[in-house]
């Protein structure tokens, strides 16, 4: 069990920032109402941030990653089971990489 000063500082900073976002919507509502555009922007953020995170891995790593991504999304869309989708995705990337390696 150990940590470092920069790690501790980063974690505390993350905690403050996160708690800040949790209370500021409530706090702000005492004084103002959010504009429709602002609400729309906040509504789009979670999806677009996650797309940005996965896009380079999915679209510019290789066929195995792209194929496994399709498999993950299909299983999730049909079953809505995160655990199952993850297992299928991991299995698919493992299998496709083996296949690619054997074809070389």
């Amino acid at each position: 069990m150990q940590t470092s000063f920069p790690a501790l500082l980063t974690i505390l900073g993350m905690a403050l920032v996160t708690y800040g976002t949790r209370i500021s919507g409530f706090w702000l509502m005492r004084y103002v109402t959010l504009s429709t555009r602002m609400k729309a922007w906040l509504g789009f953020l979670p999806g677009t941030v996650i797309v940005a995170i996965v896009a380079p891995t999915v679209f510019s790593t290789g066929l195995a990653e792209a194929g496994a991504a399709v498999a993950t999304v299909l299983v999730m869309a049909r079953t809505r089971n995160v655990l199952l989708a993850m297992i299928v995705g991991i299995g698919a990337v493992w299998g496709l990489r083996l296949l690619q390696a054997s074809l070389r």
Partner: protein
Amino acid sequence: MADDRLVAPGPPSEEPVGFDVTGAAAGARRALPIALSVCAYGLVFGVLAQQAQLSLLDVALMSGFVFAGSAQLIVLSLWSMPLPIATILLTTLIVNLRNLLLGAAISPWFLRISPLKAYVTLFFMSDENWALTMGEFAKGRRNAAFLLGSGLILYVAWVGSTVVGRTLGDVVHDPARFGLDFAFTAVFLSLLVGLWKGKSDLLPWVVAAVVAVAAAHFLPGKWYILLGGVSGSIAGVVRHAD
């Protein structure tokens, strides 16, 4: 779109909003099934945290103080020495900005309890128990402690499972050999399926993907996350807000 849920009218002005053990217990009971899926997600976070070289103590502190699954998971991809603290904090802010919406939507009820209770309870607000609580309020029940009770159960599940996952991570060597490096991407792809609300998401998501792929190619580090996320969401606003 997300702002549909903001039209919740709030409690009738003559009725008081309660805050007691009964409400907290009801919230805890209702959140139990969700706590199970939080545990699965927490185990994955723990294993990935081990790969990112966070110590067991780092994981316990982060889960305990931050308590934000998606932000913590994203930060793992930024966790390299020396720690890019400014980038990590900016990313945490962007990923958690949606909490502003949740807090604003729930404020009509929380403005009716003491500020101390409200500010303590809001620490435990996540997407999942916020949605449960808004459902309760919509049915006319008015016990604000429901958010606290459901949040506490998810908190225990999150901290516990991430610590266990971090411990398990010590046993799994060379994760790429088993495709486990893809777990991170797989979790996010599954979350995306749940976030898809219809055609209005198509343009912002395409813009986010294109910008991110280009930025990852031309820029160092992880700037592609912020650039893609922000430009995609702005594209969505420009296209759909009016």
